[in-house]
């Protein structure tokens, strides 16, 4: 019995890992992943073409308060609005900001005119500047000095400290946990879909190519189904482990080649500080900023090393396998019940909804990883693989973890049992469009 399952597992595994697409994905995966992370940074650094805003200031109070930056350039136009709009039509500017005389009393009269869709960045920038200026004017009117205002401006970042059972204190880094949680949750979601649908397609292939009857005259349908599910699981596991290994290798190589990649480059520091200095002209604040940035960078590194990677990787593998087995059995059942790929849709929907649901609620879970939504969704087997992986970087009580693991195992035993019943009848059904009613009969049979 097990010998034959082993033969099936071997074929399912080898036929997949030998495919070009597997090899390409395995090698490209970490590179794509790295690109995904670094690309937004690179894109952010690329400058867009400049966006020019003409300022028509009827009050004469604010025109010199707009500083160029963020690809937005301001020009003061000492003309009236109509002339300015004329220039706008001749495309001398991208936008005209009009500050009417009554603007200070009724800010709703402020207008930004454009001929095309407005640049949101510029609009927000203008709004921020005006808000700041209006506030200072109002404060000044009540006798509060600008310098006093500057002095009381404070950057606050609260350190979260968790008191553990044994009285020890541990610093939390929710931001880092959040990023790690969403990445691993998404990865589980992706893996379940990716390899679950491979099982579906595999079953469908055997059915449509009509090799199925030859095989199940040699082995039990259950052996074939399990062999396929386990074989594909090993493919997924292999891919994951190679990815982990390649990513570590990539990080190591980059670290040795470019040692200060993970620190702020001097260039960036100068940029930040000079900008701040120009803005404030005060040295202490400059020092503050430096320290602030240093501590964040340090915190990220510290928090990353504070995370128990063994627990992370082990639980990832466990919840990936558990979730995969749970869903793969259902996917196998779907594959056996239909005749072609187009017919899978009606059955795919109810199976994929809990997964999509998990990803949507994942954001809620990230915000409050110890709340009751997080608890229940990480206990229910259909959503637990994704949700638990989101929770784990924040630290999860052992009770929750064990309960979730236990229920997940019970869950996949149940779906496997259910799927086996559908599968053994489904694979022999040809040419008939199967309904939920039929499937219910197969299960009861």
């Amino acid at each position, binding site marked *: 019995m097990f010998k034959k399952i082993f033969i099936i597992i071997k074929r399912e595994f080898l*036929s997949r890992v030998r495919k070009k697409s597997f090899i390409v994905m395995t090698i490209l995966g970490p590179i794509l992943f790295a690109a995904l992370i670094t690309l937004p940074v690179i894109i952010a650094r690329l400058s867009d073409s400049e966006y020019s805003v003409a300022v028509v200031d009827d009050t004469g109070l604010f025109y010199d308060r707009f500083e160029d930056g963020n690809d937005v350039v301001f020009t003061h136009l000492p003309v009236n609005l109509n002339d300015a709009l004329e220039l706008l039509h001749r495309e001398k500017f991208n936008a005209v900001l009009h500050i009417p005389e009554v603007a200070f009393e009724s800010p709703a009269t402020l207008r930004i005119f454009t001929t095309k869709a407005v640049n949101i960045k510029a609009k927000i920038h203008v709004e921020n500047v005006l808000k700041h200026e209006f506030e200072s004017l109002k404060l000044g009117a009540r006798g509060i000095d600008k310098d006093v205002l500057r002095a009381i401006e404070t950057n606050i970042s609260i350190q979260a400290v968790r008191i553990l059972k044994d009285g020890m204190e541990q610093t939390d880094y929710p931001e880092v946990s959040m990023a790690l949680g969403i990445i691993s949750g998404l990865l589980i979601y992706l893996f379940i879909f990716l390899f679950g649908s491979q099982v579906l397609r595999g079953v469908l292939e055997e059915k449509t190519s009509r090799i199925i*009857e*030859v095989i199940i005259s040699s082995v039990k349908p259950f052996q074939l189904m399990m062999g396929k599910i386990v074989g594909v699981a090993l493919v997924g596991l292999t891919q994951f482990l190679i990815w982990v290994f390649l990513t570590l290798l990539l990080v190591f190589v980059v670290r040795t080649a470019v040692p200060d990649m993970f620190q702020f480059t001097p260039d960036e520091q100068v940029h930040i500080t000079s900008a701040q200095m120009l803005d404030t002209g005060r040295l202490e604040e400059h020092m503050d900023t430096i320290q602030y940035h240093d501590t964040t960078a340090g915190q990220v590194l510290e928090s990353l090393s504070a995370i128990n990677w063994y627990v992370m990787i082990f639980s990832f593998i466990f919840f990936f396998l558990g979730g995969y087995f749970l869903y793969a059995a259902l996917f196998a059942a779907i594959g056996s019940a239909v005749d072609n790929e187009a017919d899978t849709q009606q059955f795919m929907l109810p199976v994929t909804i809990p997964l999509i649901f998990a990803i949507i609620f994942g954001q809620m879970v990230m915000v409050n990883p110890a709340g009751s939504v997080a608890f229940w969704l990480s206990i229910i087997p259909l959503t637990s693989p994704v949700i638990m992986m989101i929770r784990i970087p924040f630290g999860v009580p052992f009770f929750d973890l064990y309960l979730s693991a236990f229920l997940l195992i019970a869950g996949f035993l149940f779906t496997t049992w259910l799927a086996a019943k559908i599968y053994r009848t489904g694979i022999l059904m040809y040419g008939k469009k199967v309904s939920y009613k039929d499937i219910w009969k197969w299960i009861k049979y």
Partner: protein
Amino acid sequence: MNNLIQVNSVTKDFTGHRALDDVTIRVPKQSIYGLLGPNGAGKTTLIRIINQIIGPDKGEILFNGEKIRPHHVEKIGYLPEERGLYKKMKVGEQALYLAQLKGLQYYQTKKLLKEWFEKFDLLNWWDKKAETLSKGMQQKLQFIITVLHNPELLIFDEPFSGFDPINVNILKDEIFKLKEQGATIIFSTHDMGSVEELCDEIALINKSKKVLEGNVRKIKKEHAKQIFRVEMAGLSSSFEIPNKNDFEIIEQSTKDGLIEAVIRINNDKTTNDLLEALIEVGNIVSFNEVIPSMNEIFIKTVLEKQ
């Protein structure tokens, strides 16, 4: 034990209809056993039950006298009507895989397979994907996979459908050879010609019930109705036999100067009585019993039961 397979009162219900109703058949060892019946009669269901792909609701299957069990699949070779291959898998690898699932060892199988591939002219395709094979070659490959593990029982479901005449002949020869080597063969078919040519025994299934079973020659004899065809020489046109009630002439025609007549013997008279009567009439050139073809028996039996 003279029967390799014994199907005892097997009943199988699917949702909505009864596929097999109290079917009992006996397949003698080293025989070629034809499973006949119209479409939807239940042949494939019976074959699947013997292959343990599905289980019967009532009744049992005996293999060599013992109740059939999962390990018996290694003694059975099955070529289903709906047969396929993994399109993207290499031919040799695929055959090896399927053989291993039948319990064969990897290395001995490889050698054996190469011999079969050689015999069927497939050796050049060993490392090619199955989808590159022509239909005829795919069928050869499927046949090899079916017989490779040297099974005691071979089951072919509609083996000749889709084969070209040359491959049909190769297949027939192989079936005879397998029988000589001691195998028992069950095959289902619509092709009555191949039944007469190949089968020792048959069972006819109609509307989920067995309606006829037995030795092909015996069945034909039983269905023969004392009808004979004679050719007479030296007669001008038609002739008559004096005792009309005993020897009824069904039809008469002239052909190449001979008169051919089909005569039915009635009233417990024997062939000798007929011959005596005919000698009185003229010269007998030939005298043959008209034996119904399996096709006629098939159609008659099926229609009778309706």
